[in-house]
């Protein structure tokens, strides 16, 4: 059984700029795979190379085992949902959706049937006769999806499709996308810079930074066990402990990351429970955020830590107080770099 997609040392250079640098990974069949990273990190370039809009400078791309590296987009069994939807403005919605079938010379009656199926799938059964500029952003996004899915591709690529939608709509679409993916059962490759979105939707996430993949894993893997400082702070936030302090606490010369919500504040006179690390510090800042309170603590070693405590009971630590920061040994995650 071949993975749906496999990248083998794929690089894409623009002159001296390495947009993608020897990316190697594979995507399982039927997975919801997300490429996450800030802008310019190479994730969109990788997506475009899967689609065929960009040709790699070196390396091999396989789709279900077949080498497609030099194949043009129209010969790949892959379809794309574009960031700006790219609906053809001079065609109706129905003509847009059936475009792929029309190219493949599917007869008209069957085209019409499948177009209606697709429109039903994306909950827009009556818009077939309209033109794209008569639809709202959310509606256009769904039509773009229908236009891609109607061709029953083996892989669907989505290039930050929810970026232009407002928050409520975006969250609603996230749910719908996930539902559609599970219903249709094909592999989704999703690109986003929004780590929350990535966490909510994905089976596997690849975190990109400056053309390289920092880590691939499930949302839990990435969150609980980040392997680099970048991942530790791109997916959620982390406190980084290194050097002398790390050595003193753990006995190892490495960098560690600890999630803020895994740290707790104790009164300076209370002792840390067994199996916990601890550092003494002074509260520099307290921000009340409804669900939780965020504390900024400056330890006696000069380290600045973020601690988040849920507001189950009232917090009484205040600015200037001396506190004891504690966390379990489990929460201390060693970075691989």
């Amino acid at each position, binding site marked *: 059984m071949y993975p749906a997609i496999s990248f083998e040392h794929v690089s894409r250079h623009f002159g001296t700029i390495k947009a993608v640098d020897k990316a190697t990974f594979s995507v399982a069949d039927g997975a919801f795979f997300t490429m996450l990273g800030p802008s310019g990190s190479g994730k969109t370039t990788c997506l475009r190379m899967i689609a*065929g*809009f960009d040709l790699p400078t070196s390396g091999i791309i396989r789709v279900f085992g077949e080498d497609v590296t030099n194949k*043009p*987009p*129209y010969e790949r069994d892959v379809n*794309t949902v574009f960031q*700006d939807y790219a609906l053809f403005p001079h065609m109706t919605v129905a003509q847009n959706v059936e*475009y792929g079938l029309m*190219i493949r010379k599917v007869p008209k009656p069957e085209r019409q049937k499948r177009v209606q199926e697709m429109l039903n799938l994306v909950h827009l059964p009556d818009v077939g006769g309209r033109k794209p500029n008569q639809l709202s952003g959310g509606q256009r996004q769904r039509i773009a999806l229908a*236009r891609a899915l109607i061709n029953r591709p083996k892989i669907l690529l989505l290039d930050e499709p929810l970026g232009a939608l407002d928050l409520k709509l975006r969250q609603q679409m996230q749910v719908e996308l996930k539902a559609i993916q599970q219903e249709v059962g094909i592999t989704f490759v999703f690109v986003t810079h929004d780590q929350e979105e990535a966490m909510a939707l994905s089976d596997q996430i690849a975190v990109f930074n400056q053309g390289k993949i920092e880590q691939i894993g499930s949302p839990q893997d990435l969150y609980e066990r980040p392997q680099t400082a970048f991942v530790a702070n791109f997916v959620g936030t982390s406190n980084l402990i290194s050097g002398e302090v790390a050595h003193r606490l753990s006995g190892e010369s490495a960098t560690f990351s600890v999630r803020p919500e895994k740290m707790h504040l104790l009164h300076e006179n209370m002792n840390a429970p067994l199996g916990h690390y601890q550092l003494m510090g002074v509260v520099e800042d307290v921000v009340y955020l409804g669900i939780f309170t965020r504390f900024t603590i400056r330890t006696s070693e000069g380290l600045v830590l973020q601690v988040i405590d849920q507001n189950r009971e009232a917090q009484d630590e205040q600015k200037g107080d001396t506190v004891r920061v504690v966390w379990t040994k489990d929460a201390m995650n060693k970075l691989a770099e």
Partner: protein
Amino acid sequence: MKNKNIGLAIAMWAVVAFLHIPFFVVMLYAFTTDSSTFTFPPPGLTLKWFGVAWSRADMWAALSLSVRVATISTVVALVLGTLAAAAVYRSRFFGREAISFLLVLPIALPGIVTGIALRAAMGEAGMTFNFWTIVIGHATFCVVVVYNNVLARFRRSNPSLVEASMDLGADGWQTFRYVVFPNISSALVAGGMLAFALSFDEVIVTTFTAGQQATLPIWIFSQLTKPRDRPVTNVVAFFVVVVTTLPIFWALFQNRKFEEQSSH
């Protein structure tokens, strides 16, 4: 301040009148009964010259030649202009800015330069001056009009559309046919109409590249040495004004619409 306005306004309207009175005058003369002079005011009005003009075979020949030349030149200009616009839009290549300059030269340089240059070259090449030499001249300066229109349209279009089309299974040719062409069609129409108008009206280059043939403007030019034929010339002038004014209005109106849309 108000006073200045009124003075200025009068000056302005005078200029507008200056620009437009000739049209009305020339149309008026199509009806004059005077057959040999340009007496103003016309001694009488009649429709009989329309009939006379209608029966002039040489006029029809000139008109038909103008139409044929303009049509073929426009087609050539459409093809070459679109190809050039596509090339400049898509790729960054050495000498890209030079292309626009090169294409505009035939219009920018005085007609006499283009005319005599073509005549000299065609003469050297041993070509006889005929229909095709006229077309070659006209197509050369019409290309830029199409090029500008199509390039502007390309620049306003969404590049993802081509990718989307290919993504959905269409190859280069199909993408052009179903996606690119419909999107530039309005630019092609606009450019084509401008090219047609330019070719139809052209005199200078045409006199150099024509053999014995006469396009309509050349026919009119030659008529000017025939005072007895003036009424016929007047009728033709009348029709030229009437027939060209509406399309010009329409084209300008379209242009205006484009400008307003793209400024939003």
